């Protein structure tokens, strides 16, 4: 089953990077891109494009992953393009809004930043196995242990959430099929019947998921699960390519801070 942004098996330099390096790089780029000026944002976007090509994922796959976001992308663009106070290129009657050059420019820039954020996140999740990601998150949350934050439990919760997602979808499909098998034809039904059908679907899915979650908890207990510290199958080790990426990232950030403050 394929889900938007889910891990795809593969081999490339980006795949082989330590998940901590990938996660740190993604967070750094994401924070940075929100604060930079247009020129810097375009350079970061180009670097992301290069990283996508180098990852072996392919632009088409990234495009497919972005497709569900198309509505939001268009919406963001229109809001900025139409509600910006600039010299109007086209006035839209009745609504008091106008399309301006400054609005178009801003809409394009905001969408570009949004796309950069999304591509960075998709690239991270597509090239990093969930188990590796969880270990990386656990690594970064480790200092919170000093504040008695249950870091190991959070890691297990993320793992279970990832595990339960396909179960939730399967449960929904099952209930829908059962409804159809008993002659439920929603296409020909009115609004109130559709609402009732949705409530009945939601209730059945929730009941099913709670039952399965209960059994899963029992199975975890049977396999000696207890809250608190656990070891892991995944062993994280920084290699020379990780160090290279970290140095490159640091260098990149310094250059962009300079670019942003002088030429942005």
């Amino acid at each position, binding site marked *: 089953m394929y889900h938007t942004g889910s891990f795809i*098996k593969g081999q490339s330099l980006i795949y082989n990077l330590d998940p901590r390096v990938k996660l740190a790089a993604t967070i750094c780029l994401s924070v940075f891109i929100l604060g930079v000026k247009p020129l810097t944002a375009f350079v970061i976007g180009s670097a992301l494009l290069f990283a996508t090509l180098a990852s072996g994922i392919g632009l088409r796959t990234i495009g497919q992953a972005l497709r569900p976001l198309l509505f939001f992308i268009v919406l963001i663009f229109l809001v900025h393009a139409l509600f910006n106070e600039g010299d109007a290129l086209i006035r839209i009657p009745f609504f008091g809004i106008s399309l301006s050059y400054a609005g178009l420019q801003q809409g394009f820039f905001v969408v570009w930043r949004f796309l950069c954020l999304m591509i960075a996140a998709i690239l991270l999740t597509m090239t990093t196995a969930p188990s590796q990601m969880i270990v990386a998150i656990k690594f970064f949350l480790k200092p919170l242990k000093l504040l008695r934050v249950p870091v190991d439990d959070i890691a297990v919760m993320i793992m279970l959430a990832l595990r339960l997602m396909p179960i939730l979808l399967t449960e929904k499909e099952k209930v829908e099929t059962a409804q159809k098998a008993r002659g439920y034809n929603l296409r020909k039904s009115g609004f109130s019947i559709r609402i009732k059908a949705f409530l009945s679907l939601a209730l059945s899915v929730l009941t099913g998921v709670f039952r399965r979650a209960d059994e899963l908890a029992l199975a975890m207990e049977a396999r000696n699960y207890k809250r608190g510290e656990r070891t892991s199958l995944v062993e994280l080790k920084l290699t020379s390519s990780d160090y290279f990426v970290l140095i490159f990232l640091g260098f990149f950030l310094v250059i962009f801070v300079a670019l942003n403050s002088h030429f942005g």
Partner: protein
Amino acid sequence: MIILEDVYYKYEPEGIDALRGVSLQMKEGEHLALIGPNGCGKTTLIRHLNALLMPTSGKVTVGGCSTNDPTHQADVRSLMGMVFQNPDNQMVGMTVEEDVAFGPENLRLPTPEIKKRVAEALIRVGIPDLACRNIENLSGGEKRLVAIAGVLAMQPHYIALDEPAAFLDPAATKRVLDIIDKLHSEGVGIIHITHNMAEAALTQRIVVMNEGRIYLDGTPQEIFGKVELLKQIGLQLPQITELLIQLKESGLPVRTDIVNMEDALEQIRSLAGKIKD
């Protein structure tokens, strides 16, 4: 050794007893089938062996560790593995190796040891090639084998399996039963809940439960010899035994204490020889 002494269990304080004075002993390396009608307490019983349930009264000991003692619970769960009826509801990891590693991770073993145990467990159940496969892309039979591997990675002395061949096609059923047989030959004690009498006939000992009590306990030959007692609680005989009984009722001189295919074939061949002569 597993010892149950006069075990009673109620799911709710005011409810009825799900187990009523169950006493049972099982040696290490024994292969035991637990049969009985639905709701007779089979699943409740095996959940006591893994310390998932605690007796309302009585005592359960696994390998000398009492399940009532919280300090021994981890030991009990390492000694007694548990494979649930529905493998979909017991998979924790996203991939096969992640799921199999879940138990050893809980035992806080170092990473190299976890990797070693995962590899060994997958080899023992014959699916080393599935290590990196996504759980969602496995067949029902493969999921059962992953569930068994997940338990084996904890290196238990006993494994309790709740209807391990339920809903499987004949080929997958054979694969799962062959693995159970192999584990038994390696010295792992097996407790096998089943509604399939032919599966029960392959074990060394059958314990029949009814209404929360041990109803019968003996070898497959002894148990399936008590036809009337089994029919009283709605259980049937293995088809092969049923066939021999019907042949005997038709006047043919055959033994009816046979529960497996090889012995039955031997009987029929000798009968055919006698008829020829």
